[in-house]
């Protein structure tokens, strides 16, 4: 009964979204305020219906109702409750329901929080979101119904891929989808602006929080996925330039460019066409990722089981939304004229450079991801594009981006001079240069990591210089605290996010110095790596809730003194017949000691040992970036509709 209720709720959500799209488009076009006023309640209704559907699916997983095909295929009664519930979005069908739930949440948020939006713009934004919803609800109901029944029900489910039974991976998809679907809102704003033929500072102010939120969630989602790959796959790597990883990086890059260019629209009313283009692009790239993962056109560890009819359906949606959006762009964008003018060397100029470089990086990643597929299709050649291509092609783009990152933030608007800006950054440059020399002195001629350390220190110190400069920390230190409290949160957010990027770069540079070795050890024997002695104390078997494991007990010694005990495992799951490796990681924040258990032979075990300097900084940096995004989002100017800063302050004084 409950699954049928969920199925009905999905159909209801489809109907409500249809109405939301139709009213929202016709209302402003015909000037019918009652139709426009009906769109927010419809969005709320669609949210409610989708939430009910999602709840029903989760309930089916919670009670392990194997008469539901999706549950039978993806769950098992022996699974811990947490993973029963997270299995809701572990399959293709379930993850699509999560996708539409987040879309409905975004619609509800626009309806609920967007009280200050002009009603025509609001109706059109909700209409576009409704239109996106219609496509995806139809997709779920037509090709991937999660509530299909199975009769007779099997006695128990087939289990979920054991690799997915992990807290990191359980929450990786929701975060990523929050990011992807957040791009749908900026897309809706862009399409609404194209229909209205107007982009102004107010539009920039409404778009920026959504771009920020989507970007922050994408940052967290990608970082969580990369962290998961690091500790679960047991290769010691954190990024593999896998096509599906690239598919998540592409909207991140476009979103990053978008939130920077939206600032220019908001403050200076320039770069309007470009910002609208980026908003369309970001959503287009996130839909492209959805298509690549679910249609089976590419070969990746991440792909869902593929079905050509689903692929055709998603392609049709992709073409409808992205092709439609770009067609509208081609037709209407010429009408938008910039109001603010600026010199090439200015804050705006810096942001344009940022956009150009980020988009070039996105173009390289896109080309590297799609080229093998198109080469196969058009030339019949099997080509694989791997890390060497991406690393060499992206380096010349990353270097100026990182260099300009610190400079751009200290440039004033409209017109700037380079020399005073560089004067404020001299100590950041000095710090970077010192890091370069220090790394070369300690680690020998390893130019890659040395450049990485220099870049990381430059960016972190650059962000510090920017903040200390705004606070006049050194020239007038007395009032610095008062100025710190008065400084808008968005300024803090920007500096924190930049510093986070610097920390991430330091982590990448540290990983450039990582060392590893394979050792075949019998209990009692030991191996040397990175100045530590790694001793295998023993091998044992262990029993988990739904798996059995072989465990190696390894003690790491530093000059005879024990540092830490590591226990890497190999788990085998009888249901689903799979094994996973559980790497044992000990982190000192400055470095990770990392051990993986391989095959056993004649009482000896193959152990892979890694020493990864600064590895945690990669994910700490990403978390700091997301924190910067959140700080910027918490800026009161985002929440309070302030046509101009002065008016807002006046309103506050009266209150």
């Amino acid at each position, binding site marked *: 009964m409950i699954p049928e209720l969920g199925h009905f709720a999905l159909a209801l959500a489809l109907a409500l979204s249809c109405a939301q799209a139709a009213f929202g488009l016709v209302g402003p076009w015909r000037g019918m305020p009652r139709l426009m006023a009906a769109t927010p309640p419809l969005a709320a209704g669609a949210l409610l219906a989708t939430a009910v559907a999602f709840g029903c699916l989760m309930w089916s997983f919670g009670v392990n109702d194997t008469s539901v095909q999706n549950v039978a295929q993806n769950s098992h009664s022996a699974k811990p409750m947490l993973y029963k519930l997270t299995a809701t979005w572990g399959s293709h069908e379930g993850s699509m329901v999560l996708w539409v739930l987040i879309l409905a949440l975004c619609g509800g948020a626009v309806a609920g929080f967007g009280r200050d939006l002009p009603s025509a713009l609001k109706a059109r934004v909700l209409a576009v979101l409704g239109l996106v919803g219609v496509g995806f609800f139809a997709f779920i109901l037509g090709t991937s119904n999660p509530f299909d029944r199975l009769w007779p029900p099997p006695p128990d489910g087939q289990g979920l891929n054991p690799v997915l039974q992990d807290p990191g991976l359980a929450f990786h998809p929701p975060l990523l989808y929050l990011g992807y679907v957040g791009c749908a809102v900026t897309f809706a704003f862009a399409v609404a602006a194209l229909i209205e033929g107007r982009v102004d500072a107010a539009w920039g102010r409404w778009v920026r929080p959504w771009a920020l939120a989507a970007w922050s969630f994408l940052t967290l989602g990608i970082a969580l996925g990369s962290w998961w790959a690091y500790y679960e796959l047991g290769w010691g790597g954190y990024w593999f330039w896998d096509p599906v990883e690239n598919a998540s990086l592409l909207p991140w890059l476009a979103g990053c460019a978008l939130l920077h260019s939206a600032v220019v629209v908001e403050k200076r009313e320039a770069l309007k066409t470009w910002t609208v283009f980026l908003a369309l692009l970001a959503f287009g790239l996130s839909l492209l990722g959805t298509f690549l993962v679910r249609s089976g056109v590419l*070969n990746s560890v991440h792909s869902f089981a593929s079905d050509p009819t689903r692929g055709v359906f998603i392609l049709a949606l992709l*073409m409808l939304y992205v092709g439609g959006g770009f067609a509208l762009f081609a037709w209407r964008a010429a009408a938008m004229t910039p109001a603010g003018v600026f010199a090439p060397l200015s804050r705006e100029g810096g942001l344009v450079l940022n956009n150009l470089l980020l988009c070039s990086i996105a173009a390289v990643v896109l080309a590297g991801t799609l080229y093998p597929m198109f080469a*196969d299709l058009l030339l019949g050649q099997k080509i694989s594009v791997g890390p060497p291509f991406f690393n060499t092609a992206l380096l010349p783009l990353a270097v100026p981006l990182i260099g300009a990152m610190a400079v751009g933030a200290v440039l004033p608007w409209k017109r700037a001079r380079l020399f005073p800006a560089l004067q404020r950054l001299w100590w950041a440059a000095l710090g970077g240069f010192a890091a370069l020399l220090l790394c070369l002195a300690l680690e020998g001629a390893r130019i890659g990591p040395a450049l990485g350390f220099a870049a990381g220190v430059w960016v972190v110190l650059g962000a510090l210089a920017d903040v200390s400069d705004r606070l006049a920390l050194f020239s007038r230190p007395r009032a610095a605290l008062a100025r710190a409290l008065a400084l808008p949160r968005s300024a803090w957010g920007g500096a924190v996010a930049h510093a986070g990027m610097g920390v991430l770069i330091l982590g990448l540079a540290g990983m450039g110095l990582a060392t590893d070795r394979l050792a075949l050890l019998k209990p009692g024997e030991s191996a040397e790596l990175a100045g530590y002695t790694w001793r295998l104390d023993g091998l044992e078997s262990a029993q988990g809730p739904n798996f059995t494991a072989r465990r190696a007990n390894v003690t790491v010694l530093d000059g005879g003194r024990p540092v830490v005990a590591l226990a890497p495992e190999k788990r085998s799951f009888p249901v689903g017949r799979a094994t996973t490796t559980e790497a044992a990681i000990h982190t000192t924040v400055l470095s990770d000691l990392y051990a993986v258990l391989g095959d056993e032979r004649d009482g000896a075990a193959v152990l892979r040992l890694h020493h990864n300097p600064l590895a945690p900084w990669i994910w700490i940096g990403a978390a700091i970036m997301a924190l910067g995004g959140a700080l910027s989002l918490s800026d009161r100017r985002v929440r309070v509709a302030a046509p101009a800063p002065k008016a807002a302050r006046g309103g506050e004084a009266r209150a």
Partner: protein
Amino acid sequence: MSRRALLVLPALAAGGAGLGFFAMLRGMGTGGYDPRGVPSALLGKAPPEFQLPPLEGAGLPGLALSDLRAPGRPVLVNFFASWCVPCVIEHPQLMRLSRDGVPVFGVGYKDQPADSRRFLERHGNPYARLGVDLPGRAAIDWGLYGVPETYLIDRGGIIRWRWAGPMTEDTLRAELVPLLRRHA
């Protein structure tokens, strides 16, 4: 280029990509596009050095590189395992090839000898030679992608074709039989 033309560019690019993706999806249906097909680095080369013991109790000789050096007629080398479901799907095709007089050499990949024996008893034995690769060492040297996987070695002992995954009747008709004829 005028500003107008520039604004049309994204729509054109999206349309072009869409056509390409559609062609890929169609190709997946007809077999013209296969993202999982992986080329073998060994095509056009001799197989790597290897020597595998026979399967005890099967009454078949083992398999080594010396058996594949200039065999005088095209032979197939098929990697299989009793635990692999697609191998069962492929098996009738191997039986047919064997009946038609094509020498099929088998390699039991990471498969316990008793299980391999039971597999052959139940489904029939298409193999003229059968090597046991319990640790999967030979498979690594061959660059095995998974089981089942089949290689065609020509008269001169050069690998001419590799098929990763189960061979179906279509595979035989469209790919293998013409190749066997060409290299005969």
